[in-house]
C-alpha cells in the first residue's frame, strides 16, 4: 500500500471527507461518478412530469410554487453535475450518456402525471423519499457531494410541503378531488417505495459503497424510515394506502408492507415504463433544437472575449 492509498483509507476510517484532488481508488471515483450523475439526471428528468402541469396549475400561487420547485430541481441537477465534474467527467459527457440510455435516472419519473393530484403525490411521496435519501447522503464521504447534499436538503425543505399541501386541498375538497387524490396515491405509492432501490439482499453495489461510506444507510433501512413517516400522513388525509397487507408491528414499532411488484420495477428500469421514451425524447429535442443557440453563443464569445477584463 503506498502512502496515497494509506492516506485515503485513513480519511474513510476517520470519517473525514475525500476532496477532489486527493488520491482515490479508480473504483471509488467511478462509483461516485455513476451515483452522482444518476442523481443529477434524476433531478433534470424529474422536471418533466411536474412541468406537465405547470401551465395548468389551478391558481396563481400554485403556479408560482410549482415553477419555483421545478427551477430548484434544475438548480440541483446543476450542482450535482458540477460535483461530478470534479471527478473528471464533463457535463457534456454525462448528458451524452443520459441521452444514449447508458446512464440511468430514477425510474419514478417514467410514470405519467395525469391529474393535478399527481403533482401533490409527486411532491409528497417522491420528494419525501428523495429527502430521506438525501439527508442520509449529507454524510457521504466525497466532500463536494456531501456539501451539495447539505445545500440541496436545505433548499428542498419546502418541496415536500408543497406536495402535501396540494394533497390536503384535494383530500379535503370535493368528492371528485378526493377521488383524484386517492387515485394518485394508488399509482405513486409503490413506485415511491421502490425509489430506494432493490432489497438489501439483492443490491449489487451495496457492499463496497457502504465500506467507502459513499452510501451511509442501506436501501431497506431508508425505505422503512420513509414508510414509518408517511403512513400516518396518509391517515391524516383520510386516504387508503394501496396495500392490504400493511400493518403496524407493535414489537418493532414499524409499519410492515406486503411484497412489491419488482417485475414491474425492473421492466421500467429496462426502458418499458409508460414514459421512458417520452422523457428522453423531450430531453434530446430541447438539446438539439437549441444547438444553433449554443453555437451562436460560442461564436459570439470567440469574437468578443479576446480582451479579458
Amino acid at each position, binding site marked *: 500500500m503506498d502512502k496515497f492509498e494509506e492516506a485515503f483509507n485513513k480519511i474513510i476510517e476517520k470519517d473525514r471527507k475525500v476532496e477532489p484532488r486527493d488520491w482515490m481508488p479508480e473504483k471509488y471515483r467511478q462509483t461516485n461518478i455513476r451515483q452522482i450523475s444518476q442523481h443529477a439526471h434524476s433531478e433534470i428528468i424529474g422536471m418533466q412530469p411536474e412541468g406537465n402541469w405547470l401551465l395548468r396549475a389551478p391558481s396563481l400561487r400554485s403556479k408560482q410554487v410549482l415553477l419555483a420547485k421545478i427551477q430548484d430541481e434544475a438548480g440541483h441537477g446543476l450542482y450535482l453535475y458540477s460535483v461530478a465534474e470534479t471527478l473528471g467527467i464533463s457535463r457534456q459527457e454525462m448528458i451524452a450518456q443520459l441521452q444514449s440510455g447508458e446512464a440511468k435516472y430514477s425510474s419514478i419519473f417514467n410514470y405519467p402525471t395525469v391529474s393535478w393530484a399527481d403533482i401533490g403525490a409527486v411532491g409528497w411521496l417522491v420528494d419525501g423519499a428523495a429527502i430521506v435519501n438525501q439527508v442520509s447522503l449529507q454524510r457521504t464521504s466525497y466532500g463536494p457531494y456531501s456539501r451539495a447534499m447539505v445545500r440541496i436538503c436545505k433548499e428542498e425543505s419546502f418541496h415536500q410541503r408543497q406536495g402535501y399541501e396540494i394533497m390536503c386541498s384535494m383530500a379535503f375538497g370535493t368528492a371528485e378531488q378526493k377521488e383524484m387524490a386517492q387515485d394518485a396515491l394508488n399509482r405513486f405509492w409503490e413506485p415511491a417505495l421502490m425509489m430506494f432501490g432493490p432489497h438489501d439482499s439483492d443490491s449489487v453495489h451495496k457492499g463496497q459503497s457502504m465500506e467507502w461510506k459513499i452510501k451511509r444507510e442501506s436501501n431497506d433501512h431508508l425505505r422503512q424510515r420513509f414508510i414509518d413517516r408517511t403512513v400516518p400522513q396518509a391517515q391524516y388525509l383520510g386516504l387508503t394506502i394501496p396495500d392490504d397487507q400493511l400493518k403496524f408491528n407493535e414489537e418493532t414499532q414499524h409499519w410492515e408492507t406486503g411484497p412489491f411488484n419488482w417485475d414491474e420495477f425492473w421492466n421500467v428500469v429496462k426502458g418499458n415504463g409508460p414514459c421512458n421514451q417520452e422523457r428522453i425524447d423531450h430531453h434530446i429535442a430541447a438539446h438539439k433544437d437549441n444547438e444553433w443557440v449554443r453555437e451562436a453563443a*460560442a461564436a459570439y464569445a*470567440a469574437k468578443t472575449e479576446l480582451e479579458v477584463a
Partner: protein
Amino acid sequence: MEKGDKVWEVFIQKKSGLAFKHVGNVHAYDKKMAIHNARDLYTRRGEGRALWVVPTEAIVSVPLDDSDAFFDPADDKVYRHATFYEIPKGVKHL
C-alpha cells in the same frame, strides 16, 4: 454544454463586511453570461449582495505532490495561533 463554453467559479458576498465565499460554479460562454447565470443559480433565495465569477482555468493551485512541502512547514508554527500564548489569570480583553 459544448465547445466554446467555460466553467466559472462563483463567489458570493452575503452582506457588506463579510468575506466573499466560494459557492460553486456555472458554465457560460462569455463574462456577462457567467455573471447572469451565477446570479440566476446561486441567488434564487436572496443569498447575495455582490458576486464574482472567475474562469476556473485561471485559478492556480498547489500541485498535489507538493502539498506536503507547502503546508507541513506551517504545522509547527504554533506561535501563529492565539491559543499558543499563556495569559495571566484575571487579565481581560486580550
